[in-house]
């Protein structure tokens, strides 16, 4: 395959960004439209690259020489990167369409061209990351992606908290980049080249391998939001404009998965067992942490961000299982686990993109992203509600939506670890992972009900929610596309699982292993079990019809009367209805040892009598435990350490000159000594 499709996409992104920025005055709207068209066409090209590239032709390469020998831009596309290009294109297309309607709220008081151009550059940078063929290109694109996403996240910088969130994001992502850079330099040392193609052939001593592995896990883990490196994620994702949140959660996190897999599958040989166990444990920990905090969260977008942490945890559990099987010399089982991770990556991109867009539509219409405030929006925003329902069902991994296929694959590979793991300890680890995944899955269903029901059902709990307007056409089209994608990828696992299978067949070290994982247009499975989601869906539909038919045949025709909800004889008021906070309270109570929720109850008593209270104030929040227990002590240590050196840094120029002189003398003495 030639590079013109993805290369053209990159050029279009850049051209569109220029168009959005350069057209001014009356031509401004035209420029923005041009940018949208460019972006949409480019995204379509990326999807096409995925479809063509994944169908298995050789990798393509393009070089652009730089001024210095190592500043060469090297782009390449192989099956693996094409799979991720497809994800970028799919969510990017929806985000482009969505933004046409969503950005209208910023017109007049914010610079819309900047936002549009930023989105296009962000997409281009993400595409570049997965297309990079050498270290320079990768790090350049990686940094561009981080910086552009930081700028986009702080777009509404005048809002309280946004700048702080952006600051934490930019610090954490650069800490990650430092680790990656070190890992790349170690690889450079053993391969003698900065090119990925040469690095793939390098052979490292075991200690260096493990070092590179740990560096990559920390570096990419910071981007993927692995606990405890996640602290930026629940802050930065929610403050961004919603289509940017969708791209950050849906797509940008996947570039970290791509990078980590490039390291483990291409650069490093299969490593010792503890690699896999470490990743599996980190994934399970991240997933549980994410879902528990999501259930305690009152802000809708932050809740979705925590849910992204959870899903990245699930993904890394798949990668962990893959590494364990690789270490144990079971390539076919490893392929199965990798398939679970890849399919889940694509699925999560679709449904999380959809949910962030839906949350944005609700935010725009009801003016708040507080979970407890709207409610009853299904009457005023029926289409948004329908699409969000699809997203919620997918997030809860309900058959026949796409989330289920990924979760099923992961359950299968963890069961396989439990059934036939090479040692007893590994089997028990597999069983523990099954328990963790089951808990996470059930809590995710809890979370999905909470998200959908308290936004769209019951009575409206604010004036704005009563008068909310349905989202604009472009926003509905974008959400509809993703919702259809969620359903289609669930009914026909072929859509993503098929491409994943072809990737698996070609991946280093797993060649010839794919038979463990088979996809037919209707079914997916391997080993000893398979599922046919379409058959299950058909059966559910038959059951639906049977329900209607049976009740009619047995009971005959009956009437339906509208009445009031039973409320112990009192008229029902909005403030009597359950809230999202109350809904998930049992979980906060049951897991309070882990979450340590902070509750304040203040009773304003009547001074004349102790028996009557004039009012109550109740506040409940989940304190940021990781920050308090890990980051704050670390920061204090750093500051204390810096204080030690304060004596040297006295601000007097003369003494600084003296330091210089002393250093010079020392170096000279050392040279003469040698």
């Amino acid at each position, binding site marked *: 395959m030639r590079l013109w499709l993805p290369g053209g996409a990159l050029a279009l992104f850049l051209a569109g960004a220029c168009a959005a920025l350069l057209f001014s005055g009356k031509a401004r709207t035209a420029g923005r439209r041009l940018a949208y068209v460019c972006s949409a066409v480019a995204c379509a090209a990326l999807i096409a690259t995925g479809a063509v590239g994944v169908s298995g032709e050789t990798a393509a390469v393009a070089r652009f020489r730089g001024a210095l020998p190592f500043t060469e831009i090297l782009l390449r596309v192989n099956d693996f990167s094409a799979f991720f290009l497809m994800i970028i294109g799919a969510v990017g297309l929806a985000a482009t369409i969505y933004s046409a309607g969503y950005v209208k709220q910023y017109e007049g008081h914010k610079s819309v061209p900047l936002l549009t151009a930023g989105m296009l550059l962000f997409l281009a940078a993400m595409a570049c990351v997965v297309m990079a063929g050498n270290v320079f290109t990768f790090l350049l694109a990686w940094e561009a992606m981080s910086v552009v996403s930081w700028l986009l996240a702080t777009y509404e910088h005048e809002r309280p908290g946004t700048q702080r969130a952006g600051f934490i994001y930019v610090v954490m992502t650069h800490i990650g980049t430092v680790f990656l850079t070190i890992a790349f330099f170690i690889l450079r040392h053993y391969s003698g080249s900065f090119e990925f193609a040469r690095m793939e052939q390098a052979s490292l001593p075991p200690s260096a391998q493990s070092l590179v592995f740990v560096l990559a896990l920390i570096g990419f883990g910071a981007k993927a939001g692995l606990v405890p490196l996640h602290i930026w994620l629940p802050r930065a994702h929610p403050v961004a404009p919603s289509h940017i949140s969708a791209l950050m959660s849906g797509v940008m996190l996947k570039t970290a998965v791509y990078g980590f897999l490039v390291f483990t599958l291409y650069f490093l040989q299969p490593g010792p067992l503890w690699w896999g166990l470490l990743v599996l444990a980190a994934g399970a920990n991240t997933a549980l942490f994410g879902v528990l905090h999501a259930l305690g969260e009152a802000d809708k977008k932050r809740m979705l961000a925590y849910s992204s942490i959870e899903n990245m945890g699930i993904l890394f559990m798949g990668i962990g299982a893959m590494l364990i099987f690789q270490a144990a010399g079971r390539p076919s089982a490893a392929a199965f686990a990798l398939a679970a991770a890849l399919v889940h990556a694509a699925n999560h991109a679709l449904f999380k993109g959809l949910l962030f867009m839906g949350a944005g539509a609700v935010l725009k219409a009801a003016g708040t992203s507080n979970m407890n405030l709207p409610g009853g929006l299904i009457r005023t925003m029926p289409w948004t509600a329908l699409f969000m329902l699809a997203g919620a069902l997918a997030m809860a991994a309900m*058959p026949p939506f796409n989330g289920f296929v990924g979760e099923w694959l992961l359950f299968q590979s963890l069961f396989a670890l439990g059934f036939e793991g090479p040692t007893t300890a590994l089997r028990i680890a597999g069983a523990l992972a099954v328990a*963790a995944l089951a808990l996470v899955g059930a809590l995710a269903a*809890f979370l999905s009900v909470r998200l959908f029901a308290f936004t769209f059902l*019951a009575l409206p709990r604010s004036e704005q929610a009563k008068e909310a307007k349905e989202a604009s056409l472009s926003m509905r089209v974008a959400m509809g596309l993703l919702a259809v994608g969620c359903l289609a990828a669930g009914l026909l696992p072929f859509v993503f699982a098929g491409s994943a299978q072809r990737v698996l067949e070609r991946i280093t070290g797993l060649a010839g292993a794919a038979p463990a994982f088979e996809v037919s247009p209707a079914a997916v499975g391997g080993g000893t079990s398979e599922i046919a989601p379409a058959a299950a869906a058909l*059966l559910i539909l038959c059951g639906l019809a049977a329900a209607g038919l049976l009740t009619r045949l047995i009971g005959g025709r009956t009437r339906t*009367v509208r009445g009031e909800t039973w409320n112990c004889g009192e008229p029902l008021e909005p403030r009597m209805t359950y809230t999202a906070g109350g809904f998930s309270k049992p979980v906060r109570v049951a897991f309070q040892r882990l979450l340590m929720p902070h509750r304040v109850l203040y009773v304003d008593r009547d001074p004349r009598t102790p028996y009557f209270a004039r009012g109550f104030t109740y506040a409940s929040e989940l304190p940021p435990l990781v920050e308090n227990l890990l980051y704050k002590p670390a920061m204090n240590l750093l500051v204390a350490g810096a204080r030690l050196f304060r004596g040297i840094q006295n601000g007097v120029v003369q003494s600084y000159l003296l330091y210089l002189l002393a250093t010079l003398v020392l170096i000279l003495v050392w040279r003469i000594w040698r």
Partner: protein
Amino acid sequence: MGEFLTGLAQLAVVVLIAPLVTGFIKKIKAILQGRQGPRILQPYYDLYKYMRKDAVVSRESSWIFTATPYVVFGATLAAAALVPVIARDSLLSFTGDLVLLIYLFALARFFITMAGVDTGSSFGAQGASREMFVSSLAEPALFVTLLAAALPAGTTNLSMIADRAAERGWPTSPAFYMMLVAFAILVIAETGRIPVDNPDTHLELTMIHEGPLLEYSGKALALLQWSAQIKQVLLFALLADFCFPWGMAVSAEWPALPAGLAAFAVKMAAIGAFAAFVEMSTAKMRLFKFPRLLGAALVLSFFALTAEYLM
């Protein structure tokens, strides 16, 4: 074709027998408590009565509330097609996967809880919240127990598990009995029986499963109750498939099928009597004590697994 018909017949048996099992449990419970109790066929009369009644639907509710009974029945029926009861094959043996089965139940629960919130009633939302809470805690134990149960077969395909379990004969390993106890706890939790939930209660504040059903009437109520009864039979059947798969027809032949049906009836009666006995002899637990009960099931199933691994 024979297999297809057997599968269809199994589905029909499960759907038709479900109210009878509920009636049987109620009768046994009444006898144990020294009451006469309602007739054993009473659940059929109840369903018939509900189906003929006009429905009252809350003004505050949306189409989710109306659609829920149908989706729940559909998902439960799909689940019924997966579980082998009389013969070892089911209608959807090729996709008869444990994980799919559990997630079909979860789909039904998803819609029931949403409908509970939809009416704006606090009782509905409270029941919904508790339902999700209990299932969240039960799920890990359930999956580990199923892993332990499926371990000898090495697959999550239900027919193959039943096959493998039938070959094993009378189990002697302690692992099996630990798994059995864990499984029994989970079946009681999932069917909403005492000590986890009380299916007969009409006191709003103690309801779990009945909470979201509070606003339902007429045909919708009939469907939801019928679905709950089918789910109960399926969970009993699952327990039987994994632990006592004796007497199931291996192929769709004349003498094997009635024998399988008889064996199925005996197993349902035995498990039902056990459930009635537990319900009669224990008190309902406080909500925040469930984690201990379900944690016990989880630990037991882990012991079972470890014992199985080490032996």
